[in-house]
């Protein structure tokens, strides 16, 4: 066997006495894509940071090309040939595509000034090599997130990397962009580059990688060829559960039978239009019903959610809740200012797609984050009642099993899954009639994901109407009673009961495409 590009030998790392990694070893060979999986808090990020020199191991050793190394930081690691592509695209949105590709190493002319012509020409070459179509002179921020991510990949690769670490690179990519990324990884492997691929998505492990290492609680619990394992076994090792147990419950934690939705109408959104993003989308949700919104990135899923919740302005359309929705057959909707505050008062709750920038308030405590939307109900003459706050927080921390050292802990210190639960609690403590969940399980660990999926079922069983958006087809299929398929800002198909399957959804999306001239 060839020598490893990166060899991690029995590293341990503690943070303030807490063991983040405990005797972890990992070999990464040239030409392989090696999956690193595990729940949040399993130690994946810490391991990456040890390899790239952000942290140094307390015990053990990291070897690069058979030499023990101790990089001073990611920059030094990058110079040595270890590139990292992070989950969030960390480029400069105001600069051009070419400017980003060559950030910090712009080609210069004889006067030492940036030669834009050469830079743009080289940038076009780079993009062509990776099959990205984009105008290299346009500001990066004008492009879609997916393309931005591809450019981040291209940037990392154009630095003569021998090792590429990808931290959940597909979390904001559309399926066809994922396809492209997979091709790029194939290309890298042929060039004998070693790829460490961190992901939450098991599909990608089997599609992209040759070997897989599973971390749990800072230890390696499994490491071996992908071909010799199964999805089920991986899920089981990540969760530390029995294979039989997982099989019984399925890969998602939605219960299998959904009762045919029989509740009364709780939400009627009609002809929501916001050009060019939304074109006459209508959605009805009944009590106890989970309505899934399926579609590709940019198909109008999030835009629909935001329009219903009043977070984005619409050109036309109406949203009615509860008794008003039921009485509305043909009635002219009252013209009023629609805003998140109004939506919340009427009984709509929303957990937004982007947990960090639109959801949690990191500097505030778990308690303050949970009660935020319920403040008007917890005050008397403007003063907050500690007793009522604590009772509410206590109820929901227990019910959602939010793991925090205390309600006073700052939310930014919690794991992604627990932050998501805090956001759910913030909306659930308002006892809404309708709850809009935009990517409720994106980027959170398998355990929390399962809990949230089970919770959605439970809430629907108790009569809550749920509008569920997810880019994971599996989640929409297993979680919904009815699925609306969106494309280009319009509903192109409705699936009910047994009609709901991944195939049918994909067919609806594809059929929608054929109708276009």
């Amino acid at each position, binding site marked *: 066997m060839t020598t490893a590009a990166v060899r991690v030998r029995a590293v341990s790392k503690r*943070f*303030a006495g807490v063991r983040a990694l405990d005797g972890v070893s990992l070999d990464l060979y040239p030409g392989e894509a090696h999956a690193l999986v595990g729940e949040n808090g399993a130690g994946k990020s810490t391991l990456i940071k040890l390899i790239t020199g952000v942290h140094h191991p307390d015990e053990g050793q990291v070897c690069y090309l058979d030499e023990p190394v101790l990089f001073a930081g990611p920059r030094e690691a990058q110079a040595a040939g270890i590139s990292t592509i992070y989950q969030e695209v960390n480029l400069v949105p105001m600069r051009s595509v070419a400017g980003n590709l060559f950030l910090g190493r712009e080609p210069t002319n004889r006067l030492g000034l940036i030669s834009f012509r050469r830079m743009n020409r080289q940038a076009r070459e780079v993009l062509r090599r990776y099959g990205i179509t984009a105008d290299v002179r346009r500001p990066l921020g004008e492009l879609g997130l997916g393309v931005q991510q591809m450019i981040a990949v291209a940037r990392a690769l154009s630095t003569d990397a021998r090792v590429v670490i990808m931290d959940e690179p597909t979390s904001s990519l559309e399926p066809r962009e994922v396809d492209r990324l997979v091709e790029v990884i194939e290309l890298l492997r042929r060039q004998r580059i070693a790829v460490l691929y961190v992901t939450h998505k098991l599909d990608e492990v089997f599609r992209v990688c040759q070997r897989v290492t599973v971390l749990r609680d800072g230890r390696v619990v499994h490491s071996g060829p992908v071909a010799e394992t199964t999805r089920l076994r991986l899920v089981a090792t990540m969760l530390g559960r029995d294979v039989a147990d997982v099989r019984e419950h399925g890969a998602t934690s939605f219960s299998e039978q959904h009762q045919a939705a029989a509740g009364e109408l709780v939400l009627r959104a009609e002809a929501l239009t916001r050009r060019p993003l939304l074109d006459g989308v209508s959605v009805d949700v009944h009590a106890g019903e989970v309505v899934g919104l399926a579609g590709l990135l940019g198909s109008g899923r999030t835009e629909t959610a935001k329009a219903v919740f009043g977070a984005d302005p619409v050109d036309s359309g109406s949203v009615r809740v509860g008794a008003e929705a039921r009485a509305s057959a043909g009635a002219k909707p009252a013209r009023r200012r629609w805003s*998140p505050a109004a*939506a919340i008062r009427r009984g709509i709750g929303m957990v937004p797609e982007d947990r960090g920038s*639109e959801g*949690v*308030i990191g500097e505030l405590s778990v308690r303050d984050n949970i009660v935020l939307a319920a403040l008007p109900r917890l005050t008397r003459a403007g003063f*907050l009642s500690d007793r009522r706050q604590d009772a509410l927080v206590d109820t929901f921390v227990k019910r959602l099993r939010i*793991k925090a050292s205390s309600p006073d802990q700052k939310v930014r210190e919690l794991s992604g899954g627990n932050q998501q639960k805090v956001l759910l609690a913030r909306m659930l403590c308002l006892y809404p009639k309708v709850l809009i969940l935009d990517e409720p399980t994106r980027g959170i660990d398998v355990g929390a994901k399962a809990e949230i999926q089970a919770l959605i079922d439970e809430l629907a069983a108790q009569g809550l109407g749920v509008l569920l958006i997810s880019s994971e087809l599996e989640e929409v299929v297993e979680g919904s009673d009815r699925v609306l398929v969106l494309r280009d800002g319009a509903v192109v198909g409705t699936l009910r009961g047994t009609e709901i399957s991944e195939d049918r959804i994909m067919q609806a999306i594809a059929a929608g495409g054929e109708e276009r001239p």
Partner: protein
Amino acid sequence: MTLQAVRPRDTTKLPQRIQAAGVYIAIAALLVFNLAFTPHFATVTNLRLQLVQVVPVAIVAVGMALVIATEGIDLSVGSTMALAAALIPLYIGYGVWPAIVVALAAGLAMGLASGWLVAFAGMQPIIATLGLLVAGRGLALVLADGRLVELFDPTLGALGNSAVLGVPVSVLIVIGVAVVAGVAMRRTAFGRRVLAIGGNRSAATLAGLPVKRTLVTVYAVSGLLAAVAGVLSTARQGASDPSFVGLLIELSAITAVVVGGTPLSGGRVRIVGTLMGALLMQLITATIIQHNLPDSTARMVQAAIIVAAVYVQRGRSAA
């Protein structure tokens, strides 16, 4: 199976505690230094003078702290002081209290204007309030015809210079303002909204909070407090001096807020820390002047302190 993976999280608290205590340590050190080396420092007269001199900055800084907690900034406070000062001689003919009410109303109006520009017109706080900084002092100078006007009203004089049980009235006002602000920030829904907006404005909007109304209120409070400071300065000097009252006070107030441990990135506020920050700046100036060094030296020391304070905050948020 419930894994209660409760991890001890005391790590972040120690550096924070040191940073929070920094301003107190600095004040204690300066007091000890002055007690040892400055003649006539430990006299009632001198200590009272220090407190009275810090009043305008302290009041303005409390308002500034609220604005900074929303991730904003209010540069118009000094001009608001000048406007309040300029209005007093114009209306004192109707009596002291009507004149004061007019001055405070002008401050409120300035605050509402900045608040509207920031919340509804969507302007950057630094630009919106910079505009009002220029406009406010301009208006004050026009109203006062650019002149200093001496005022001989006994009630106004009492407001500036009398004391209750040995404590100057103006100092009592500062304490009152701080207590109200502290309680509002800790115990009311308003305070929680302010911190939520500063911590993450989009999240606050999506949680249904009245973000714009809250922002306008915060700037209005800042404007009102600046007017209070303007009235008290005028009362203490026995003269309305719109050319110089409150000049550059926005910088001292921002310094006090930051040194007191309120991050410029919003989402957190320290009212008592802010008062201590103001006191620290005052003590530095006093120490330097009493040791016959030029006032400009004091400014350089203050500059060093604000840089250090922001540096410490930066280190903490990066951790």
